[in-house]
């Protein structure tokens, strides 16, 4: 997977907002908010050429006190939610 370019992560209260900075029309009703851990993952993969669920699992294990199984489950859920929100795409081979 790889992040679709053009999004900026902005702190907003206790959460983070992903804003499509590259477009001229920003729909605030369709904004994507990330919690602290999702924002941490986003920051760490935003510049990577590619990442997968193992990448996110390792990042979670390095930062949070979670079991490998829980980290893998969270990584899978995160990737699924990012795919649903069209934030990531398949990395080019």
């Amino acid at each position, binding site marked *: 997977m790889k992040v679709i370019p053009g999004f900026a992560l*902005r702190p*907003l*209260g206790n*959460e983070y*907002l992903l*804003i499509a900075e590259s*477009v*001229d*029309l*920003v*729909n*605030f*009703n369709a*904004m994507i*908010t990330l919690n602290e851990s999702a924002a941490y993952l986003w920051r760490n993969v935003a510049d990577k050429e590619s990442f997968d669920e193992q990448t996110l699992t390792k990042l979670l294990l390095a930062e949070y006190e979670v079991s490998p199984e829980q980290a893998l489950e969270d990584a899978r859920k995160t990737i699924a939610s990012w795919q649903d929100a069209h934030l990531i795409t398949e990395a080019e081979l």
Partner: protein
Amino acid sequence: MQLPNEIFIPEIARLVNEGKQVIFTPTGVSMRPYIEGGVDNVTLVQPQNLAVGDIVLAEIAPQHFVLHRIYALQGETVTLMGDGNLQGEEHCSRSNVLAKVTAIHSPKGKSKPVTKAWLWRHMLHLRRIVLKIYRHTCI
């Protein structure tokens, strides 16, 4: 996404200031019948060429934001009032006007006209009756 105004309005202002158009859904009933809070979307742009009758997003006191219509412009002072209000004006300076509404959209994608509401601004004494009818027939 439910966030307090004092958090997300400055973010809207920042984006508008960068030259972007921003769509969001205002809340409240103070702009009836022109804007139905929590239902209609508005498009905001940089507040250039302000005129009486424009609907603007303004900070009328620290972290107190309103989306109301301009009723008077005198030098640097802007007088605002909500279309759904029967009385009570707000005052701020031009620099406190953060954005201007250029479009109003209902949920089904239909655009509402963005007028200067000249007649509405001058029929304060009839507002109570019209708004009562509006509440009973249109909501």
